């Protein structure tokens, strides 16, 4: 009897601490700044417990049933706390309000628990023993929870399910208490039914935990990860959800198989179709082979050279069945030559000439990548471009990063080319921009390869028109010694994510 009583003290304490840890972790996870989050969550939780302890003096009668009732409320609020926080973050502006509201409510209720419990059992033991036993088990419960949380709960259950699971434990303790204190409870049956309802609710939540996470958690890797590797150069992650395959490089989405054809058709055909007899094509970046797939739709093309830094990337897209299905085994074509090299260095040392060059690099998120968007880089392209040649540059979003986009246009111009910027809508990315450039005048092509899923000759013309919200803004060019683009890009995307 006594042992069971004190085990329930241990469990209550463990539950209390788990909710607190979950609140701190969810806040750190979603908002960042973990030191601040944990400090303020723990602080307000402990303070609220103090309020609870203080309030316990105003409860004079019906201690036992009130105790059970408080347990049930804690079970509900605590059990759903994690799910509530994720939903609040996903669907409201007021995450901190929810966070501290939940923390304070839980703190007050948990603060009430121990003083009430001590008063309930004070007649059974000496006061000395009550204090000693209750507090001992209280602290053991805390240790138990603090070890269980990082070692078992977070890795195996996740934050949403851990909270629900401990909500059930809490409710079970409530149910158990109705038997422990049945002599002190006027209507134990009613309370037991109530306990049952709470447990059913929590179990239902647990069964649907994944749906709650899926609904709320804007985790970029929400889908099933089918491939993940840290190569020498980057972190490659491939996810799949039903028929949607997504590639992430260093957590940046590269394509979604549902609409990548829009991106790649628009990248390749407006320029390549305008070259009268394209024989030699160069692709810089584009280790997924999807641009090469589009290039291979031109029978006149005799050779495609692809320069990508990462051999693991090109190997993956030459061998993985899902991926070769996507790029239609582009890398296995005898016309395709893969070179794994640093693009800038390769350009500087190679003498080769091409009729069309596709520049498909990651966005200029740092100074290293920014070098690939400079006047010097585009000038280096000139030596590799045949008389009839054009090149095209993937140029981030003219909608979300408007200044960055027009900065790239200006940079290509200052390198001495005529530019023909255009844009398309790619659902996975939003409005996306390209800069087509050459040393002679560009006329949109009269025909396109057959079998395209998105691009039409009629649609081509509209792509070169920029509505006012994406229209040109005056920007300086991006230089190796003054990378305006990287600063602008960082600033623009930061504004959007806040």
């Amino acid at each position, binding site marked *: 009897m006594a042992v069971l009583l004190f085990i329930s003290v241990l469990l209550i304490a463990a539950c209390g601490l788990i909710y607190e840890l979950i609140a701190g972790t969810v806040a750190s996870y979603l908002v960042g700044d973990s030191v601040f989050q944990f400090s303020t969550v723990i602080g307000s939780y402990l303070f609220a417990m103090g309020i609870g302890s203080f309030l316990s003096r105003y409860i004079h009668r019906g201690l036992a049933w009130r105790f059970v009732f408080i347990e049930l409320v804690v079970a509900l609020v605590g059990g759903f706390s994690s799910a509530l926080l994720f939903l609040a973050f996903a669907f409201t502006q007021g995450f901190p309000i929810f966070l501290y509201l939940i923390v304070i409510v839980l703190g007050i209720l948990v603060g009430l628990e121990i003083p009430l419990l001590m008063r309930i059992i004070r007649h059974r033991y000496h006061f000395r023993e009550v204090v000693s036993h209750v507090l001992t088990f209280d602290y053991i419960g805390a240790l138990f929870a603090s070890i269980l949380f990082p070692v078992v709960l977070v890795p195996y259950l996740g934050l949403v399910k851990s909270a629900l699971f401990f909500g059930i434990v809490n409710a079970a303790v409530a149910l158990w208490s109705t038997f422990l204190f049945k002599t002190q409870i006027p209507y134990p049956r009613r309370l037991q039914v109530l306990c049952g309802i709470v447990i059913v609710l929590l179990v239902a939540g647990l069964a649907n935990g994944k749906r709650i996470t899926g609904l709320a958690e804007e985790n970029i890797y929400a889908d099933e990860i089918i491939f993940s590797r840290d190569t020498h150069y980057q972190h490659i992650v491939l996810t799949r959800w039903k028929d949607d395959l997504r590639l992430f490089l260093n957590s940046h989405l590269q394509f979604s198989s549902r609409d990548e054809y829009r991106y790649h058709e628009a990248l390749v055909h407006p320029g390549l179709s305008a070259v009268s007899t394209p024989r030699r094509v160069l692709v810089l970046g584009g280790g997924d082979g999807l641009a090469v797939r589009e290039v291979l739709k031109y029978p006149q093309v005799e050779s495609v050279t692809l320069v990508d830094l990462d051999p693991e990337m090109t190997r993956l897209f030459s061998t993985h069945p899902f991926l070769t299905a996507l790029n239609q085994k582009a890398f296995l074509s005898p016309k395709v030559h893969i070179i794994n090299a640093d693009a800038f*260095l390769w350009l500087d040392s190679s003498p080769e000439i091409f009729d069309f060059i596709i520049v498909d690099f990651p966005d200029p998120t740092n*100074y*290293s990548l920014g070098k690939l968007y400079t006047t010097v880089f585009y000038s280096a392209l000139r030596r590799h471009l045949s008389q009839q040649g054009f090149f095209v540059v993937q140029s981030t979003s003219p909608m979300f990063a408007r200044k960055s986009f027009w900065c790239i246009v200006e940079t290509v111009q200052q390198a001495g080319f005529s530019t023909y910027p255009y844009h398309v809508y790619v659902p996975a990315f939003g409005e996306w921009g390209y800069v087509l450039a050459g040393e002679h005048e560009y006329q949109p092509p009269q025909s396109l390869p057959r079998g395209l899923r998105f691009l039409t000759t009629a649609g081509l013309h509209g792509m070169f028109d920029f509505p006012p919200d994406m229209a040109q803004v005056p920007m300086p060019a991006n*230089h*190796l*010694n*003054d*990378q305006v683009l990287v600063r602008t890009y960082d600033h623009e995307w930061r504004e959007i994510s806040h």
Partner: protein
Amino acid sequence: MKTTRREFCALGAAALVGLSLKSDRAIAGEFVNDSFQMGHMLRDRRQFPAPRQIVRIPLVIAGGGMAGLSAAWRLQKRGFTDFVLLEMNQQPGGNSRWGENQITRYPWAAHYVPVPGKEAEYVRELFTDLGVFKDGKWDERYLCFDPQERLYVHGRWQEGIEPEAELTPGDREQFRRLGDLMQAFRASGGFTVPLEIGISQRHAELDRLSFAEWLTKNGFNSRPLLWYMNYACRDDYGALAADTSAWAGVHYLSSRQKEEKGPLTWPEGNGWIARQLLARVGKFVRTDQMVYRIQRERNLFRVFAGDTEYRCDCVVFAAPTFLAPYLIDNTPQLHDFHYSPWLTANLTLDSIPDTHGGAPAWDNVVMDSPTLGYVDAMHQSLRTFADRTVWTFYWALAEGAPGANRQLLLEKDWSYWKEAILTDLERVHKDIRKCVSRIDIMRMGHAMVRPAVGSIFSPERSRIKRAADRLYFANSDLSGISIFEEAQYHGVTAAERALHALSH
């Protein structure tokens, strides 16, 4: 099989050795390019073996640093090829020497040239010859890539070396006031690069007090500002502001226009310029040829170097001027030529240390460190991905007397300096020891001339500068400021004067 106690102990010891190897990775390295042995032979007036051959040649250049190489460049451009350049080291270049390993080339000392202004006529001419300046534009490949500089202050990196983080309004006001004062000095036209173009008696009084005194006198007491001024003096002159002539301090801040976003730099620093010059004038250069005596005989100079005696009509003395009394017969001791001792190190990094958020820059400085920080040799690479690099670590031993610091450089072994360097870098890169595989250290007792109080307008200096009897001094120390432009200016000027003398 039973393990005996002896075997068990041996295993244990082996395990311990294994562990200690793992926890403290071995870092290789040595002292490189030491030249004090040769210097001390001159100082101690040691006997050298008698020459085995005599070469008759119109002109000899002594010293293959930037001054000597620039003199050779000028002579060749004038169509004069009847000369040799004698260099005591195996590698020419002087303070523009460079090194190379499997990762990259890297500098041993001078590592940049600010974008030259209109006054630096010869520098612009050279850079036009080298293709750095084309059609009125600087080749962007040679302008320092973005981000150029950063400073570690208040526990994090800020962009730029001038302190900006957590300045008080008072600090800001002083920075602004200093900027205004310097703008006025700049507008006066008295502070130019090369210094010879604009220097005038109008500002001679600045040479009579130290830069630190000048700052105090003008009410500057902001701590970040004073740190920055001391850093500038240590960086350019190897001296504290208290040991620098106020004229030189003002010159540092007011001699350049801020028009181009520079400076010009290369992975091997000014070694790139040295390499380009050597590609043109290398055929005149004789290395491992230390000039140990220059004797004047009526209309002839006898220049002794290695196993050869050169008999020539003219000498361009491009070696540091303080060597003159030890080399040239009947030269009195010099009193106004002071030099700062330096130490530089090249660290081979097999992986890139954690940068804690700040984007790695070309020049990386830590506030309140006694050293000058490090420069990343891979910064100027077009590569988008670098997983290995070489850092050049700069340390002007500015605190204390130069003589005592020279002694320290000689006395302490490689491990001592290695530890000092790693300890300094550990302030900002906790994982530095895990990344470094090699540290080569170069000690220079007389690394650069020091513009001490009174030295810019020193009568002794102008006498040496004006020497007109077919022996022409050419080292940058004639200006009292050790920078590429001064070395080149004096090298070219000496070459012109020698040509003039030879044609008469």
